[in-house]
């Protein structure tokens, strides 16, 4: 078993001080990148039967000089943000929390300067992480259903559980979450936060088994987005034990949404009846 130690050949002056070799994080063999000329994603590997391990670092700028085995700046940034999350309850979603996070990784507090000073990236990172966790959760549930080990839930139950699971991820940070919401509404953050929100809602509907491609697609997204946002706001002010009030609110809203479909039909048929009545009256009058 050969461990190949690679230096960073493209940067003759300095090896990177902090960016870790991706291979350090993995327990199995690192990739053996044969020559520095190969920027392709398939270097010759002395053990061809082994699959490349771990995430492939993205090739960053610097004229494509990053050696394959070093993590990219983005990955380092993600690590810092993840480390910063544990300081959020104390410092809020601020550059200070990021600075503390950087310190735990052994970096200078000045590394927080890489991020926007209002903490936007930290919040977006957190939201994105939560969404990923939710997707994984829903994926696992789906697998269980497919394997026949669990019952397929009815839609309203499914939606309730998904939204509740996602909102529960906010509980450790709930005190500072209103601050986060207001930052997410800042103009320069709206594209990203909206993006994250819509993809999460899409995800939930996808796992709920929504196959429609018609007009309903939009209504369902809009409805669920409304449910999610209002429940989130209720949760901010909820002081009941384990947020019981919030989950009851959620239950009611989902039930409303289910009934809405029926109501729409009713309105339509009432409307038709009304029109027919009017027509009849008009005919009578004209006679």
């Amino acid at each position: 078993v050969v461990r190949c130690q690679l230096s960073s050949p493209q940067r003759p002056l300095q090896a990177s001080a902090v960016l870790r070799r991706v291979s350090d994080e993995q327990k199995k063999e690192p990739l053996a990148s044969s020559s520095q000329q190969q920027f392709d994603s398939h270097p010759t590997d002395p053990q061809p039967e082994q699959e490349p391990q771990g995430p492939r670092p993205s090739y960053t700028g610097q004229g494509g000089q990053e050696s394959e085995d070093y993590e990219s700046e983005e990955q380092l940034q993600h690590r810092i943000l993840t480390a910063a999350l544990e300081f959020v309850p104390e410092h809020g979603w601020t550059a200070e929390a990021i600075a503390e996070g950087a310190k735990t990784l052994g970096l200078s507090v000045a590394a927080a300067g890489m991020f926007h000073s209002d903490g936007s990236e930290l919040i977006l990172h957190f939201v994105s992480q939560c969404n990923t966790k939710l997707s994984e959760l829903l994926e696992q549930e789906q697998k269980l259903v497919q394997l026949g080990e669990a019952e397929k839930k009815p839609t309203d139950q499914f939606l309730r559980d998904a939204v509740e699971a996602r909102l529960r991820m906010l509980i450790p940070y709930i005190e500072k979450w209103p601050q986060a919401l207001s930052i997410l509404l800042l103009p320069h953050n709206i594209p990203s936060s909206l993006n994250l929100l819509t993809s999460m809602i899409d995800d939930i509907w996808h796992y709920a088994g929504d196959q429609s491609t018609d007009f309903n697609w939009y209504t369902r997204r809009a409805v669920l987005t409304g449910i999610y946002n209002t429940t989130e706001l209720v949760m901010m002010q909820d002081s009941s034990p384990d947020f019981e009030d919030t989950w009851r609110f959620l239950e009611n809203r989902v039930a409303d949404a289910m009934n809405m479909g029926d109501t729409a039909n009713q309105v339509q048929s009432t409307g038709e009846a009304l029109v027919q009545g009017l027509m009849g009256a008009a005919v009578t009058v004209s006679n």
Partner: protein
Amino acid sequence: VYQVFESVAKKYDIMNDSMTLGIHRVWKDILMHKMNPSPGTLLLDVAGGTGDIAFRFINYVRSVRERQLQQKLKHHQNLSWQEISESYQEDKFKSLGDSQVVVCDINKEMLKVGKQKAQHLGYSEGLSWVLGNAEELPFDDDKFDVYTIAFGIRNVTRIDLALQEAYRVLKPGGRFLCLEFSHVSNPLLSRLYDIYSFQVIPVLGEVIAGDWKSYQYLVESIRRFPPQEELKAMIEDAGFLKVDYQNLNLGIVAIHSGFKL
């Protein structure tokens, strides 16, 4: 270069104000905001002679620290008087929160003026003054959180050496910040700027500081200095990552920033 600054030292600040019509203060403030230092930061200000950056740093950190303490007190609503007075005691001695700035300059005269200014303005703690050469800094590796060089790097003979030294003395995760005159791309402004630089500034130099030649040198050195992208490449060559620059006043001045990652 040494002699230029020897003769210029005493009138340095006055000349700065008149040449840039006082805008240099704004530039330096913007630099400080960009840095956004938290208490406990160790700053190295190179070619910082008369201490402008250093004083701003201390002010900034002090106000951040005050805000931090206020926040802490807000959370301490339920403490007894005893505990509150105790926390006042210990916080009083840390008004800077362990932040420190080391001002390093190659020129004794500039440092002298800086020290006098500090005394005059009442800055005492958290400041050190060190004589040193940017190309060969008298400090250990991995020491500082932030390295700044404001309007100093164009006077360095070997910029690449200075950048390498900066990389060396910074801690991992540390930040390099450089505030410097740079290239104006807008042609109209460029012409006006040229006229101002070559006609007005040396005259001011003669009138205020009695020194035409030094300011002629100054203006020429600005023209010869590499433009933004080139400086960015040089900083990257020294090993810094996430290197970026911000133009102020359409390029008259630029702030370059890089991280040791």
